[in-house]
C-alpha cells in the first residue's frame, strides 16, 4: 500500500501500486479488478487525478521505449510511460522536437494524452492530441489501436479524459523538425493588464510561442503588470557562423535538487511578493531575438526539481481557467479578486488559446487562459476560488482538470458540456465501472 498525492501534495490517499511491463499485464489487471483502477504517469497533475484511494494505481512508467524516428514524417512510436524529457533527449540531437510541450518536461506521454496538454503554441498548433497519430488503449473490455480517423469516438473521448477511458500503453506522435536547439525570444515588460492583453491579442500570429508571466500581487495602477515572452525556433541562418557548425548540441540538463522538505510558509506573502517584484524588475523593457536554449525557454521550472516542497506540508493548489475571447474582463476580475484578497500567488501565467480541440474533455477553448499557483493555508482562499468558479462558469469558461483539486462539482456539466458523451463512451468500454479516480469521485465524473 502506497500513499500518493498529486504535484500539489494536498490530498494523500493510499492504494496498491502495480507496475505492468506490457499491454498484456495491463489487460490482466483491468479485466480482473474488483476495486477502482487508474493509470499514473509522473504525478505532475496537481490534484487527485492519478490516484484512487483503496484501489489499484497502474504506474505507467514501466511502459517505456522509444522507437525509431521516421526521418521523412517525424513520426515516432513511444511507450506511454516515456517522459517528454527522455523523448527530447533522443529526438533533439536528431533535429526533432515535440509538437506541444507543457511547462515541464517531467510528464509522460500517457499523462500528456490524458490531460490533452497544451503549450505556449496552442493558438497556432492546438493541444497535444492533435499531434498524436494513433494510440494503443487498453480498456476493461479489451485493447485497441485508435486514431482520429479510424475511431474518432474513442480517440477524442480519451483525449483529455484523465485516464477514465482506459490505459494508454503506446502512442505514435508526429514530431516537428528543428534546425537548432535554440529559440529566438522577444521579451516585453508590460506595465499593466491592458497593455499586456493588447500586446497579446494583436501580436499572436507573429510568433509560434507566446506566454506572459503576470504579477498577481501588484495592485492599483500596476494591476496585472507582466513580462511577455514570445519566441520561434531559431533557424540555422540565425546563428552566427561560428555556431552554425554545432547548431544542436546533445542537451545536458542541469538539475538542482531542493534537498530538504521546506517548512510550511517558506513561500509566504512577503517572500512571494519579493520574488514577483524581482522577476518583474529583472526583465528587460524590450528585447528582440535573444537566443535561448530549448530547456530555458520551455521548461524554466525544471531547473529546480521538487520545487513543490517549497510550499511546505499543506501544499499548493493551482487554479487554471479558460474563458472565451470576449471575456477578457473576467481575466481582469480574476486577477483583481486575487490581488485584493491578500491571498499570495506566485507568478501567474497568461496565454492565448486558439480554437477548441476536439477531445470531449479537452480543456482549451478559444480565448484566454490564466494559471495561478497558491499555497494552501490562507482561510480566504477556498472562498475566493469558489467566486472565481462562478465567474468562469457564468462566462462559458472552465477550469483545467489536470490542475484541479477543489472545483465545486456543481459547475462541471456547464464547464464541460460534452461530459455526457464521455459517460456514454465509458459505459461501453468499461461497463462495470472499473476505471475510477479520486478526481472522478470528487467531481462525479
Amino acid at each position, binding site marked *: 500500500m502506497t500513499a500518493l498525492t498529486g504535484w500539489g501534495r494536498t490530498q494523500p490517499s493510499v492504494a496498491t501500486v502495480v507496475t505492468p511491463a506490457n499491454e498484456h499485464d495491463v489487460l490482466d489487471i483491468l479485466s480482473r479488478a474488483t476495486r477502482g483502477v487508474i493509470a499514473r504517469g509522473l504525478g505532475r497533475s496537481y490534484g487527485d487525478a492519478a490516484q484512487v484511494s483503496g484501489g489499484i494505481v497502474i504506474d505507467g512508467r514501466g511502459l517505456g521505449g522509444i522507437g525509431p524516428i521516421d526521418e521523412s514524417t517525424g513520426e515516432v512510436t513511444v511507450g506511454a510511460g516515456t517522459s517528454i524529457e527522455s523523448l527530447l533527449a533522443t529526438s533533439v540531437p536528431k533535429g526533432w522536437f515535440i509538437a506541444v510541450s507543457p511547462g515541464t518536461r517531467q510528464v509522460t506521454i500517457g499523462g500528456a494524452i490524458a490531460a490533452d496538454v497544451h503549450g505556449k503554441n496552442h493558438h497556432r498548433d492546438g493541444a497535444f492530441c492533435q499531434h498524436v497519430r494513433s494510440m494503443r488503449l487498453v480498456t476493461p473490455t479489451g485493447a485497441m489501436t485508435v486514431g482520429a480517423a479510424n475511431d474518432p469516438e474513442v480517440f477524442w473521448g480519451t483525449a483529455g479524459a484523465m485516464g477514465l477511458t482506459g490505459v494508454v500503453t503506446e502512442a505514435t506522435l508526429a514530431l516537428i523538425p528543428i534546425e537548432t536547439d535554440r529559440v529566438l525570444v522577444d521579451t516585453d515588460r508590460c506595465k499593466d493588464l491592458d497593455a499586456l492583453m493588447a500586446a497579446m491579442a494583436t501580436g499572436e500570429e507573429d510568433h509560434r510561442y507566446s506566454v506572459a508571466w503576470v504579477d498577481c500581487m501588484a495592485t492599483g495602477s500596476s494591476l496585472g503588470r507582466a513580462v511577455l515572452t514570445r519566441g520561434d525556433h531559431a533557424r540555422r541562418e540565425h546563428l552566427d557562423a561560428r555556431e552554425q557548425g554545432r547548431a544542436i548540441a546533445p542537451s545536458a540538463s542541469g538539475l538542482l535538487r531542493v534537498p530538504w522538505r521546506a517548512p510550511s510558509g517558506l513561500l509566504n506573502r512577503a517572500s512571494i511578493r519579493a520574488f514577483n517584484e524581482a522577476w518583474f524588475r529583472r526583465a528587460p523593457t524590450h528585447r528582440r531575438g535573444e537566443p535561448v536554449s530549448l530547456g530555458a525557454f520551455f521548461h524554466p521550472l525544471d531547473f529546480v526539481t521538487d520545487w513543490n516542497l517549497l510550499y511546505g506540508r499543506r501544499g499548493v493548489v493551482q487554479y487554471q481557467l479558460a474563458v472565451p475571447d470576449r471575456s477578457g474582463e473576467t481575466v481582469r476580475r480574476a486577477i483583481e479578486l486575487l490581488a485584493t484578497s491578500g491571498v499570495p500567488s506566485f507568478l501567474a501565467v497568461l496565454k492565448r488559446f486558439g480554437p477548441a480541440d476536439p477531445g470531449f474533455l479537452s480543456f482549451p477553448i478559444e480565448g484566454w487562459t490564466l494559471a495561478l499557483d497558491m499555497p494552501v493555508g490562507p482561510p480566504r482562499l477556498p472562498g475566493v476560488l469558489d467566486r472565481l468558479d462562478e465567474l468562469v462558469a457564468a462566462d462559458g469558461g472552465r477550469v483545467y482538470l489536470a490542475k484541479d483539486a477543489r472545483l465545486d462539482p456543481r459547475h462541471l456539466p456547464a464547464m464541460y458540456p460534452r461530459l455526457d458523451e464521455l459517460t456514454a463512451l465509458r459505459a461501453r468500454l468499461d461497463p462495470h465501472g472499473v476505471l475510477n479516480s479520486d478526481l472522478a*469521485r470528487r467531481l462525479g465524473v
Partner: protein
Amino acid sequence: MQDAFGNPQRIVVLGGSSDIARAIAVRLCRERARTVVLAGRSEALLSDAASELREAGATEVPLVRFDAAVPSSAAATVEACLEAAGGPVDLVVVAVGALGDQALDEDDATRALEVVNATYTWPVAALSALRGRLVAQGTGRILVCSSVAGVRVRRANYLYGGAKAGLDATCVGMAESLRGTGVALQILRPGFVRSKMTHGRPDVPFATDVDAVADVAVAGLSSGQPVLWSPPILRYVFAVLGLLPQGVWRRLPG
C-alpha cells in the same frame, strides 16, 4: 472525496443530535458536503438536524438510530451508517457521550456505567469497528469530540471526565496506528461549552459556545492538526494547569 482544503463531501455523524456535531455538519454542508448520515438516539432531534443540513446544502441525509447505552450495538450502527453513506466516507464525526449527574451517579454502579458506556465504551467500540473499514478505503478522517474535562479530571465530574480521559488517550494511540494508511484521526478538545448539555450550569473561565467550537473544528480539518483545542488558548492554559499541585487545582473555580 475531500478537496485540497480538507472539505469532505460525504460524512457520517455518530451523535447526530449533539449541538457541536450539528454545527460542524452545517458548516461542511455550506462547503462541499452533500451526503450526511446522522446517527443518534432521538428521532425528533435527528429529523430537526436533518432539515437544517438540507437547508445548508445537503442532498442526502439518511438517519440511523442507536442507543449508546448498549455498547454491543456499536458495530452494527457503524455498519448501517457506512451502508447508508453509499460510497467512500470522507469524515466520521464521533460526538457521543453522556454528562450524567455526578452527585447521583458517583455512588450508583448502574448509573456510573451509563455515563462510562455512552462516553467511553460505545465510542471505542464504534471506532474499532470503523478503523479497518476506513483503512480499506485508503482515505478518510475521524474527528473525535473529547473534552478538557478529560485532560485533568476534577472532583466535580470525574466519571464523565475519566471516561473522556480514557477515550482521548485511546484516540491518541489510534491516531498513531493510522499513520501511513491515508486515514487520519483528529481529537477535538473543547473547553466548557454553553449548550443544551450544560444548560443551567454556571460559566467557567474560557467558556465557549457551540459556534466557536465548530469553527475551530472546521479550520482543523483544513490544517490537519492532530489535536484541536477550543478556544485555541486552552492548549497553553492546560499545559500550565497540568503542572499545578492537586491542592491548588482543587480550589480553582469551575
